[in-house]
């Protein structure tokens, strides 16, 4: 009897494994072809001194990696990425929750806000880059005009190494906050209407409902939002490349822009690959580590 139970459990597990394998297969195949293979290739290339195009790369072993460890520019870029990451999480996610909560509480009337708020997400980086360079221009830009209106002077935000990075972070937040709004709106659908109605009957007001009921139920959504924002910020490229190209004085240089310039503009594919590899290791480590902390108890199971 007991033996039968074990075989049955085993059988069931085998069945589970089988179903899991079938369901996972397409994703795993695509990832191996399009992502694992390029990663392996990157690590391979990083062992060479190679301009990216010649047919005889020179093997230098760990040379590029040693250089990477001592490359101030890379670590400055990494630090910039960390700043982008911290501020993005602190700005985008709370704003996203606020917007989603407003939409959730206001109901149908707020649809128009949801649509208007979402527009930044839809615009292409080309247009955003163009309009913000003009809006941020020291002379005649919108920010400077506002400052002058209040009796201040012209402000050079993008050209000043002290403010450039924060300005870019602002623009990135402008573009990506809507995503976290939509994400939280979707998260709210998990907080079922019944719970809300029950809490209203119990006499809870909206603030209490939000703090004690909605927020805890949104927690899984927020955790994954934080991870997404983290990874997204650590490998960010687009707007920075369009708006500042990493300047002035490397103030906005990110790992991705640095890697891109090395690999494709400076004919240093070998070292560029080492930077890309370093990026990959750092980002994976940080995100997996954070995930483990956030899901601590569950992973331990």
């Amino acid at each position, binding site marked *: 009897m007991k033996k039968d139970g074990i075989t049955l459990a085993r059988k069931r597990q085998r069945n589970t494994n089988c179903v899991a394998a079938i369901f996972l297969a397409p994703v795993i195949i695509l990832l191996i072809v399009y992502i694992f293979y390029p990663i392996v290739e990157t690590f391979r290339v990083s062992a060479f001194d190679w301009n990216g195009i010649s047919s005889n790369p020179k093997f230098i072993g760990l040379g590029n990696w040693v250089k990477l460890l001592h490359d101030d520019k890379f670590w400055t870029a990494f630090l910039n990425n960390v700043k982008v990451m911290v501020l993005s999480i602190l700005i985008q996610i709370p704003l996203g929750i606020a917007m989603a909560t407003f939409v959730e509480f206001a109901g149908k009337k707020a649809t128009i806000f949801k649509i208007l708020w979402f527009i930044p997400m839809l615009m292409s980086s080309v247009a955003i880059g163009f309009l913000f*360079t003009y809006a941020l221009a020291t002379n005649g830009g919108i920010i400077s005009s506002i400052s002058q209106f209040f009796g201040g002077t012209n402000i050079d935000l993008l050209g000043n190494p002290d403010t450039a990075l924060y300005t870019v972070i602002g623009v990135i937040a402008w573009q990506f906050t809507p995503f976290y709004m939509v994400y939280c709106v979707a998260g709210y659908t998990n907080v079922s209407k019944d719970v809300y109605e029950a809490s209203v009957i119990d006499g809870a007001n909206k603030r209490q409902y939000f703090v004690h009921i909605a927020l805890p139920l949104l927690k899984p959504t927020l955790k994954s939002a934080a991870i997404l924002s983290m990874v997204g910020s650590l490998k960010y490229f687009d707007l920075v490349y369009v708006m500042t190209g990493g300047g*002035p004085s490397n103030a906005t240089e990110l790992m991705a822009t640095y890697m891109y310039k090395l690999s494709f503009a400076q004919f240093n594919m070998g070292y560029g690959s080492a930077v890309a590899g370093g990026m990959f290791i750092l980002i994976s480590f940080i995100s997996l580590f954070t995930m483990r902390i956030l899901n601590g108890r569950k992973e331990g199971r």
Partner: protein
Amino acid sequence: MKKRMLKLAALTLSLAMVASLAACGNGGNGDSSNDQASGGDAKTEEDKVITYWNIGTEGADKEALEYAVNEFNKNTESGYRVENVPTQNDNYKEKLVVAMSSGECPDMYTSWSGGPMNEYIESGFAQPLDDLYEKYGLKDEFMDAALAQATYDGKLYAVPTYNVSLAGVFYNKEMFAKYELEVPTTVSELEAVCDKLKAEGITPFALANGPKWTGSMYFQCLAARKGGLEPFQSAVSGEGTFEDECFIYAGEKIQEWVKKGYFPEGVNSLSEDDGQAKQLMYQETAAMMVIGSWYTGTFPSDSPEFYEKIGWFSFPKVDGSDADASIQIGTIGDQFVSFNCTGEKLEAAFECASYYASEGAKNVMVEVGKIPPTKDAADLITDDVTKQILDAATDASSVQLWYDQYLPPAVAQVHLDTCQELFGLTMTPEEAGAKFEQAMEEYLAE
């Protein structure tokens, strides 16, 4: 429940459709590969196509390029056909690197000579062309300076195409007349002009230094007028240094001018591509602009009326310096075509490029405000400003290609970065020179 199953069925069905659609796409490709395997004809057919990558997506570049390609395809007896593949400039170099690294380099491609072209040549993606130049008699056709910029290690590797572009000073003639200003011939006169403009509330120079190469032109001109080209060339070869007096002078002048307010506010964040420099010229809040002379095409294409107001002068000489003031910084040829094919195909491709030197192509270029890099350009050009620029180019004892194009790409990047820092006053000329020199030495050490 039933409804759900129906929905599901519909979804699966559409997925299947999509999959078959995708399969169709593959099928189409599969067919063509079958053709190739079965009939040798298809393969030779494909071999008879010369792929030509370039950046002629828009405006003047596009017109001259399409003229050359169309003429070739119409007239050639080689049996080859050139397929024109225009690509946006911004990521063009990256696209070339990706293709070359996969061994799929196009048969003909545009580059800007200098550092990157040398990399292409060293990696075996360009062919020497001296014999073909002889055969088509093109050596006498192009300006010597143009051929010099197409030369690597004593051999010709490219064909110059569109334009003669020098770094010089465009100025607003009307404003100069209004404020009773004379065209300056020395840097101190230039500074006097700037001071007067400044007193009138006008920004002397329109400059957008976001992309860095724009501000670098001021640096290059100042250094060349102070010390000629010798210091630069010996610094590149490793005998001299970028800490030479003339580079320090250039850095000091730039910083002096920044402090005096000769440049627009927030100059390092203005974007040249988005038109933030020329905008100041058009709004007449700035009076001068040191920029490549392709602006003889840019100004009239934006507004022919405004172009009437524009004059040009060569960068003034430095007081007390005995450097040859006829030296120019710029490119003679602008874009150069290199070839990655051999034998008959190379000859056909070269024939196509030779159409850039044809009467028709030259006329197209002149019409859109460009200067063909050919010896007879002077006979074709009627526009005064353009003529002046051409004269400066032909009178020049030598023309130095833009630093950022000429130098090895990694060194060029350091030059651009440090030069921008000079404008931002975040680095002293000495520090900038030392960093520049260090990058050069590192490159030479390899």
